[in-house]
């Protein structure tokens, strides 16, 4: 066909190394076009390279592909026969005290199942990469959350020496986890560039982004909580099952909040992985804690209901003095400050805790809250700073700004560390040639990169007396981070929601959303507030709208676009309030914790709890769809 340069498929694709992977281990999902097996619906079977996008699209549509169908299973349930204990990469299951004995002694026991569906990152920018060979060197401009990590993965995948691969991602249109890996767009672009000896750009369609970039796995979670009549928790038992692919290991660490949020005489957690014939799931904003806190914080609200206790008071009465499972001291724990200040601003003290007692015309109204923690810290990174002859400073760090404002924040950190104005800082980011650096992920980007920058600045300032210019110093935080004392290090938040529910239509609308956050030192309040607000809006979207739906017969997601998979739009979102209580991380030179993900974490539970307060019916399955509210309406 006109314009076609060639087709890459499993017969001619460059061979890939099965060693490439992620934090969790080798990732067979990266091994595209290596054989004739299609392990999940949506897996690429060929790449057509043409001179123009129109020609490539027409040729791809015309490409004959024949399939033999084999048995497959994409239907998730916690009781699936293939269920097995999850990897312990995030630590062993908790097993503190005697859960059964404590439950038997409890005045009230909540024992419920909570369910969350597959959810997608849905970054607005389509995954796109351009790759070309520059002599012996592979060059790529990609959209990703960590160019160094992606370049390293790409080198492993194509069996190249790491120094022969350069990946840049200077401008990225949102990530939320989906751009944390060596993406299909990059792998396929490199294949095309390698086979056809020319630059190749691959831009995935929105449909392909849904089918080929990893979702948050569906979860089913059983939470049992026992409490004394005074509201003191006796036992928390949290079992969480989530789907995985046999191609790659992954852990949706739903039980993390259960291990750290509340004191209880007995705490037990279990993580179960259910392998299915699906694309390997991976981190979506607030991984683990987002579905996990929905279960835990919904169950806590149910405990308060059964005790006839203010849900705020229940949280305040179960503050731990040290890590409830780890026994480690908290570096700083400001959950109470978040709860109290959030309650004051929200007007929580006036709340009538009885459900289904407020009407506004035909609407039922209610309020709810949730508390959360999100683990924080820094991961090894390097940075270089050059003192230039003109008095300016060039800072080079492999950071990625996916919309967080990292570039802006790091300029402030560097200016602070060098004790000069921001106008003298030239910040260069997102180039794998800048050396090892953590990615924009885990709410650890700013903390990790800032630490490397402040270390480099300290070294450079010792040399500024020497008139030689330019002078460059490099710092790497690997060693200093290895020497940090073990602590429970978390950001905290309290989320308050006000909703209305229409019993006639089942529609839930969020009237008000307020979050108080303890995220360490806030580098840039404008940007940090936007992160918190945006995270809460993603949580709202998760609570009410988002659900990846699979057709069991084909195993394929049936709503793989923005018409079928609704994300919150302008009309779904009220004004959102977010603010910060004073906080700092004592072990971080800049006092930073992290703000990227915690906004998403508690919001779904706060909204679900508000829906109960409005309607008198618990919503234990997300999203809180109109049919679920309608069907469950007691009248």
């Amino acid at each position, binding site marked *: *066909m*006109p*314009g076609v340069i060639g087709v890459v498929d499993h017969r001619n694709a460059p061979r890939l190394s099965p060693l490439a992977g992620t934090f969790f281990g080798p990732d067979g999902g990266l091994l595209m076009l290596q054989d004739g097996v299609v392990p999940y619906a949506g897996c690429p079977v060929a790449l057509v390279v043409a001179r*123009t*996008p*129109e*020609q490539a*699209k*027409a040729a791809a549509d015309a490409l004959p592909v024949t399939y033999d169908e084999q048995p497959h299973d994409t239907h998730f349930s916690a009781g699936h026969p293939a269920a097995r204990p999850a990897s312990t990469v995030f630590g062993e299951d908790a097993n503190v005290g005697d859960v059964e004995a404590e439950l038997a002694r409890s005045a009230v026991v909540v024992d419920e199942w909570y369910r969350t569906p597959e959810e997608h*990152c*849905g*970054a*607005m*920018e*389509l995954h796109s990469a351009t790759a070309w060979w520059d002599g012996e060197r592979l060059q790529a401009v990609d959209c990703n959350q960590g160019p160094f990590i992606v370049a390293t993965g790409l080198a492993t995948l194509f069996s190249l020496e790491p120094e022969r691969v350069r990946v840049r991602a200077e*401008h*990225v*249109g*949102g990530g*939320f986890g989906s751009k944390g890996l060596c993406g299909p767009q990059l792998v396929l672009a490199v294949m095309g560039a390698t086979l056809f000896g020319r630059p190749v750009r691959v*831009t995935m*369609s*929105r449909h392909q982004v849904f089918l080929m970039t990893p979702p948050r796995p569906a979860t089913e979670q059983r939470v049992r909580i026992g409490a004394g009549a005074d509201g003191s928790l006796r036992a928390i038992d949290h079992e969480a099952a989530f789907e995985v692919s046999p191609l790659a290991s992954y852990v949706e660490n739903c039980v993390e909040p259960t291990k750290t949020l509340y004191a209880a005489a007995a705490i037990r957690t279990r993580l179960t992985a259910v392998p299915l014939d699906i694309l390997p799931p991976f981190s979506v904003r607030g991984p683990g804690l987002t579905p996990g806190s929905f279960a835990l914080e919904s169950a806590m609200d149910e405990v308060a209901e059964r005790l006839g206790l203010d849900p705020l008071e229940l949280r305040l009465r179960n503050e731990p003095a040290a890590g409830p499972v780890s026994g480690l001291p908290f570096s700083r724990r400001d959950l109470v400050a978040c709860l109290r200040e959030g309650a004051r601003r929200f007007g929580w003290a006036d709340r009538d805790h009885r459900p289904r007692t407020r009407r506004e015309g035909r609407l039922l109204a209610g309020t709810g809250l949730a508390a959360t923690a999100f683990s924080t810290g820094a991961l090894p990174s390097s940075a270089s700073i050059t003192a230039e002859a003109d008095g300016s400073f060039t800072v080079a760090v492999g950071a990625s700004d*996916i*919309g*967080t*404002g990292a570039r802006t924040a790091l300029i402030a950190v560097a200016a602070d560390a060098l004790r000069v104005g921001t106008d003298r800082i030239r910040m260069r980011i997102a180039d794998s040639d800048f050396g090892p650096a953590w990615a924009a992920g885990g709410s650890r980007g700013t903390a990790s990169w800032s630490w490397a920058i402040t270390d480099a600045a300290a070294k450079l300032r010792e040399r500024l007396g020497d008139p030689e210019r330019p002078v460059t110093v490099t710092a790497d935080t690997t060693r200093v981070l290895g020497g940090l004392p073990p602590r429970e290090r978390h950001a905290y938040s309290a989320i308050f929601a006000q909703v209305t529910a229409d019993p006639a239509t089942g529609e839930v609308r969020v009237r008000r959303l307020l979050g108080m956050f303890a995220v360490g030192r806030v580098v840039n309040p*404008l*940007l940090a*507030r*936007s*992160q918190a*607000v*945006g*995270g*809460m*809006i*993603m949580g709202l979207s998760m609570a009410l709208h988002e659900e990846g739906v699979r057709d069991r017969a084909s195993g394929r997601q049936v709503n793989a*676009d*923005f*018409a079928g998979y609704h*994300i*919150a*739009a*302008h*009309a779904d*979102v*009220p*004004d*959102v309030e977010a603010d910060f209580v004073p906080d700092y991380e004592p072990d971080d030179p800049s006092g930073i914790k992290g703000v990227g993900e915690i906004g998403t974490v508690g919001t779904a539970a706060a909204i679900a709890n508000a829906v109960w307060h409005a309607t008198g019916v618990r919503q234990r399955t997300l999203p809180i769809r109109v049919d679920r509210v309608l069907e469950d309406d007691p009248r």
Partner: protein
Amino acid sequence: MVDDARGEVSLRVNGTAHRLEVDNRRTLLDALRDSIGHTGPKKGCDRGQCGACTVLVDGRRVVSCLMLAVAADGCEITTVEGLAGGGELSPIQQAFVRLDGFQCGYCTAGQLCSAVGMLAEHAAGWPSAVTADVSPDLAAPRLDAAEVRERMSGNLCRCGAYPSIVRAVLETAARGQVAG
């Protein structure tokens, strides 16, 4: 199927005339980005579901991924690059910057063009789905947050910059700076 049928098209983009020979399958979005080099409009879905590619065609909001370039022949097109004049950002752009009406920025060009088109629609008296009184003899309905949210709902923002965007639009409208 006829492959690679090509057509000639005249577009006036941000005041500059362009005469192009394009693949008839080429969308206005791809023509703006790949044929002319205006990369302000962004491709977020290529099927009219996200609004990131919104431009103004003869003053009206259009998702440029759903319009073929040949169908825009003879049209006057404004992209985000055309909103600023004389090296200075337009009032709506300044409001977005001041109020942090964006995070990753990918939807921003579409939000801005949509806001400019929407404010003009409102000023012309167009009602929306949330307008209480749609009597034809009424002047423009009162522009409040609910009206802005409804009218801007074709522009998705996954980062969740919505509250700041709504503030920026309302602030710009209150100053009477409809033209963007």
